């Protein structure tokens, strides 16, 4: 079988599995937490003392711009997200996150092929303890 351009692009993307973002360290600000809760429309007073479940994504899981990945398709879709919580995140905490590309595979959709990318992000607090882990499935189409 003759390799196609599509195959070689997928090969180049798959060669980036293991790509890791630089570590990012952010202090959780009470004002940011308030703005986030206002944006999602969740008035629970618990979230003044503790980050709501999906706040972590606002600290650093935006999809990394890996050039080979951006050559595939016209845009992004979100496939899913999985959160594992170890320790609550609170205002004043200093959280370090690292994201890794752990899987890349193609699937045939109804309107052409789709590229699935799995990104794993680990969040660690200022005590060096794991706070949470997020697995994001991002799709190029």
């Amino acid at each position, binding site marked *: 079988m003759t390799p196609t351009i599509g195959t070689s692009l997928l090969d180049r993307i798959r060669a980036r599995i293991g790509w890791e973002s630089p570590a990012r360290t952010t202090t959780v600000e009470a004002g940011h937490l308030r703005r986030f809760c206002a944006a999602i429309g969740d008035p629970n007073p618990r979230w003044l003392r503790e980050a709501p479940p999906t706040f972590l994504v*606002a600290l650093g899981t935006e999809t990394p711009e890996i050039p080979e990945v951006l050559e595939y398709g016209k845009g992004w879709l979100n496939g899913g*997200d999985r959160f594992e*919580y170890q320790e609550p995140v609170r205002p004043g905490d200093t959280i370090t996150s690292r994201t890794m590309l752990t899987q890349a595979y193609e699937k045939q959709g109804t309107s052409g092929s789709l590229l699935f990318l799995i990104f794993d992000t680990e969040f660690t607090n200022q005590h060096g303890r794991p706070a949470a882990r997020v697995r994001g499935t991002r799709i190029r189409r």
Partner: protein
Amino acid sequence: MSAQAGDQLPELVKHPTTRQLVQYAGASSDFYEIHYDQDFARGTGLPGVILHGLLKTAWLAQLVTDWAGPQARLKTYEVSYRGLDFPDRPYRCRGLVRSVEGGLAELEVWGEDADGNRTTLGTATVELGEEAP
């Protein structure tokens, strides 16, 4: 709280607007234009701007934490996006208890568009806390 398999979570209905999408883009630093720029969204083949998947995820989390109460802790939470959702249409968040064992409740949650399609499917494991049965 006393939870039992088969219990339904009190429904949560959201009424997203483009204003809220911009607000969420800013608060989450997700500035992908398909969530606030109609021409850009159409240019990628979408019918118009769409809701952030993670905004729907935040609502389904609220459904769970409102039901579970202040003593409860979310242990794991997973969602899968199965359809697009648009501003200016109501979004219904629903869920039920699959099982309760050893103070842990396994929940099934989902979000429905205005036509009743389940566009987001999820599961959650909740530690019910001191008041658990």
